C-alpha cells in the first residue's frame, strides 16, 4: 500500500490537487463506489466541489514523511485538470451563489465555519471580536475557494483575501460575484494551486483550506505547502471529515446515498483523516494545532452548529511555529 503511493508518478502526486482532479481511472479497486466523473459532476459537493484524485486508501503518514525527505525534486509541478470535467461542472458552477440551489448545504454550513475562523483568528491576532471588521489588514488565502463563499465574508470582515482554485470557471464566477460589492471587490482571485504560490514565495498571515484536504493526493504534501505559505507566527484553519463509522454513515451513506446531497463517490472513507492524524501532519508542517471543534448538523432544524463532537465534520486551528 505504502509502496504504491510512493510509486505514483511524482507529478501526479504533487499536482494538487486541491481541486478538480479528474480520476482518470479508478485507482482504488477497494472503493465500493466508482467515482465516475459524470456522476461526480452532476451534483455539488457538500463540502466543495471536487473529486478525489488518486488512490492512497490509508493516510500514508509515515510514508509521506519519507516522501518528504526524499522529495527535493518537486519542481516539476504540472496541472492536470481534465477539460471534460471542467466543462461538465461548469453548468452547475453558476449556481454557487444560489443559496437555495445545489450548494445550499454549503451555504448552511458556512456560518459555523466562519464563526470558528473569526473567533480563533481574533484570539490569535489579538483583534477585538466585537468589531465589525476584526480581520482588517490580515492577509488571508482561501485555498480551494470555489465560488468565493468563504472569501467574501472574510473580505467583509476586513481581511485582504486571496482566493485560489484550480478550476478556472470557479474563479470566474467568484470574480464576477465579488465585483458586485465594493467590500468584496478587493479580493484577489487566481486560478492556481498552493504549490505554484509556494514557488512564487508568497506568504500570508493565515491560510485556510476548508473541505479540501480529504481530496488531495497527499495530505502531508498539502500541509507542507500550507506551511510554506504561512508566515511565521501565522495561522492555518483546516476543516475536513473524520474517519469514523459515524462519518461513514453520515457523510457517505446519508449524504451521498440517501439525501443525494453529494454525488455518489464524492468521498472515500479511507481518505478521511482522523483529528490525531491531522494534528500529526500539521505538526510536521510546523503547525501546532491549538483549537478544534466539531461542526454538527442537526437534521431536525436543518442547521449546522459548532460543538465538541468531532466525530464527523471538524475544523482545526493551528499556529505556525516561528522557527
Amino acid at each position, binding site marked *: 500500500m505504502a509502496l504504491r503511493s510512493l510509486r505514483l508518478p511524482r507529478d501526479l502526486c504533487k499536482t494538487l490537487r486541491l481541486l478538480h482532479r479528474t480520476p482518470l481511472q479508478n485507482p482504488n479497486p477497494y472503493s465500493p463506489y466508482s467515482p465516475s466523473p459524470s456522476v461526480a459532476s452532476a451534483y455539488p459537493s457538500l463540502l466543495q466541489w471536487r473529486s478525489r484524485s488518486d488512490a492512497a486508501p490509508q493516510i500514508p503518514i509515515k510514508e509521506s514523511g519519507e516522501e518528504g525527505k526524499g522529495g527535493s525534486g518537486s519542481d516539476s509541478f504540472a496541472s492536470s485538470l481534465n477539460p471534460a470535467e471542467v466543462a461538465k461542472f461548469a453548468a452547475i458552477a453558476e449556481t454557487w451563489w444560489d443559496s437555495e440551489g445545489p450548494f445550499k448545504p454549503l451555504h448552511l454550513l458556512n456560518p459555523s465555519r466562519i*464563526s470558528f475562523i473569526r473567533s480563533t483568528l481574533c484570539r490569535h491576532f489579538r483583534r477585538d471580536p466585537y468589531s465589525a471588521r476584526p480581520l482588517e489588514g490580515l492577509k488571508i488565502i482561501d485555498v480551494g475557494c470555489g465560488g468565493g463563499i468563504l472569501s467574501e465574508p472574510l473580505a467583509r470582515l476586513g481581511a485582504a483575501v486571496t482566493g485560489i482554485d484550480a478550476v478556472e470557471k470557479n474563479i470566474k464566477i467568484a470574480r464576477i460575484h465579488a465585483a458586485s460589492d465594493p467590500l468584496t471587490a478587493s479580493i484577489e482571485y487566481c486560478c492556481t494551486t498552493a504549490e505554484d504560490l509556494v514557488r512564487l514565495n508568497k506568504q500570508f498571515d493565515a491560510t485556510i483550506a476548508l473541505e479540501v484536504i480529504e481530496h488531495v493526493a497527499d495530505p502531508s504534501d498539502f500541509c507542507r505547502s500550507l506551511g510554506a505559505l504561512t508566515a511565521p507566527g501565522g495561522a492555518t484553519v483546516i476543516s475536513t471529515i473524520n474517519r469514523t463509522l459515524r462519518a461513514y454513515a453520515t457523510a457517505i451513506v446519508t449524504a451521498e446515498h440517501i439525501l443525494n446531497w453529494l454525488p455518489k463517490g464524492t468521498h472515500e472513507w479511507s481518505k478521511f483523516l482522523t483529528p490525531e492524524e491531522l494534528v500529526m501532519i500539521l505538526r510536521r508542517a510546523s503547525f501546532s494545532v491549538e483549537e478544534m471543534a466539531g461542526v454538527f448538523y442537526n437534521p431536525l432544524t436543518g442547521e449546522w452548529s459548532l460543538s465538541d463532537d468531532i466525530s464527523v465534520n471538524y475544523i482545526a486551528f493551528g499556529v505556525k511555529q516561528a522557527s
Partner: protein
Amino acid sequence: MRASLSTILIKRGVARRSATTILAQNVVRGRGFCNDSAGSGASSPHNVEKTLDCEESDRMKGRPAQCDIAIVGGGMVGLALACALSSKQLTKQLSVAIIDNNPALRSRNYLKKDNIPDSRVSTVTPGTISFFKEIGAWEHVQQQRHAFFDKMQVWDYTGLGYTRYNARDVGKDYLGCVVENKVLCNSLLLSLLKEDYQPIIYPARLHSMTFQRKSSPDGISIDQEDTIKQNLSGKASSGNNTMQQTQPSNSVKLDLSDGQGLYAKLVVGADGGKSRVRELSGIKTTGWNYSQSAVICTVEHTAENHCAWQRFLPSGPIALLPIGDNYSNIVWTMTPEGASHHKSMSEEDFVKSVNHALDYGYGPHPQSGSLDHYVENLFSGSRFGAQSTKEGFEVPPKVINVVSERMAFPLSLMHAYDYASKRVALIGDAAHTVHPLAGQGVNLGFGDASDLAKIVAEGVLLGADIGELSLLKKYEKERKAANIAMMAILDGFQKAYSVDIGPVNLLRAAAFHGAQYIAPLKRNIISYAMGEQKWPLAL
C-alpha cells in the same frame, strides 16, 4: 432645505461609509473622480474631507448615492430600527438612509409637556421599554410626557365578570406606559442623532424600486463573462477597478419622489399598513376588515388617572388610557356609522356618551359571587396568590371634557405572507396590522425592529451580505410565529365580543372570572401582554 439638511446630517460616521460606496459608483462610471482612494484606503479616517466633497458633488450631479440599509418610513418602527442599528457596535458602521417626508423628522428638541396631549398614543409594554433603554431612547421619553399605569381593569357590559390586573401581581412597578406617538418618534430621533452616528434622512417618498439582476451571476451569459474575463486580462491582482465595470448587482435602486436615486443593499419597509415597499416587492397579504372603526381623542378628568380601563361593549371595546396630568386617551371601537356619528356630535353629547359607556351604559356593574371566592381560595396559597384577586370592581373616573379633535379610522387585520424577500424586509404595520384592542400593535413592530437589528448584526459578525435572503429569512422565522400568536389572540378577542348570545356571554364571563381569580393564569396573561414572554402560555 434638503441640501442644508443633508449638510447638517453628514458627519464623520456616515461620510466615511458613504465614501466607500460612492467611490464605487464613480469607478463604475469610469470617471476618475476620487477613485484614488477607491482601494483599500477608502474607509480610513483621513479620507473624510474628500468624502464630504464626493457626497456633495454626487448629490449635485444627481448621481445616486449608495447606502447599506434604506429604511422606507421614518415612523416609530422605522426610527427604532435605525436606532437599534446605531446602538450596536457591529452595526453602527453601516450607512443608513431614512426615507420619509414627514417634517417632524427635522425636530431636534423635546416636545413641550404643557400642550394638550395628542390623541395618537401607544401603550408601550415593559418589553418595549427595555428595548428603548437598550437603544438609548428611553431617557428622552422620560424628558417628555408619558404616563405609567400600574393597574388595569377589564370588564364587559353583561355585568357577569371583570378582571383587575395589578403590576404587583408580577412583582413590577408598572404594567405599561402610555406615550404619544410623536413623543416616541421624537425620542428615537434624538437618540439617533449621536455624536458619532448620523443617518441620512431623505425628505421624500419612495416612488419605485429596481431590483438588480440576481446577486448570483446566473443571468450572465458565458459571452458576457468572457468579456469581463478578458477585461481582467487573466490577472487577479491587476484588477479591482476594472472589475467594477459591472453594475452593482448586490443592491436595489430606489427612485424617490423628488427625483433622487439611491442604491441600498437592504431595503426595509417600515412604511405602514399600505406599504409601498411591500407592494413594489410583490409580497402578498392576507386579512380582513372588521367592519369596525375606532374613534380616538384626548379627554380630561378632574383628577389624575393611573389605571388603564377597558370595557367590552356590544359594538366593540372602549379603552380609557392615562396619558399624564388629568388627561386620558380614548380608543373606542364601534360600527363605522356609530363612529361617524360620535365624531360629529357635540362635545357635551360625546362626553355624556363616553361616561355612559364607561359606567352603567349597556348593562350593570359586575359583582363577584360566592363561586369566585371559592376559586380564589383554591389558588390563594402562597405560591399562587395574586394581590389583585381581592380588588373589587371600580368605576373609571368621569370624563369632563374632550380636549382634542375626534378622529375615526377603519380597523382591519392584515398579515403579509412574507416578511422578507430578496434584499427586502418588512417591519411593523407593513408586515402586520392588528386590532388596536390591547395596544399591542406597535409593540409587535418594536419587536420586529429589535429582531431585525439583531439579525443584521449577526450577519455583519459573520461577514454576510446583509441583503442576503437566507439571513432575512431568519428574521422572518423569528418574528412571524410571535406575531401570529398575538394576532390570533387579539382577533379571537374581537370575535368573542362581536356576538351577543346568552351562552357565549356566559363563556366570556367564565373566562373573565378565570382571569380574575386564577392567579397563575393571571400572571401568565400579564407577562405576555407586557411583552416579557414570547408565548401566551408558559408556566
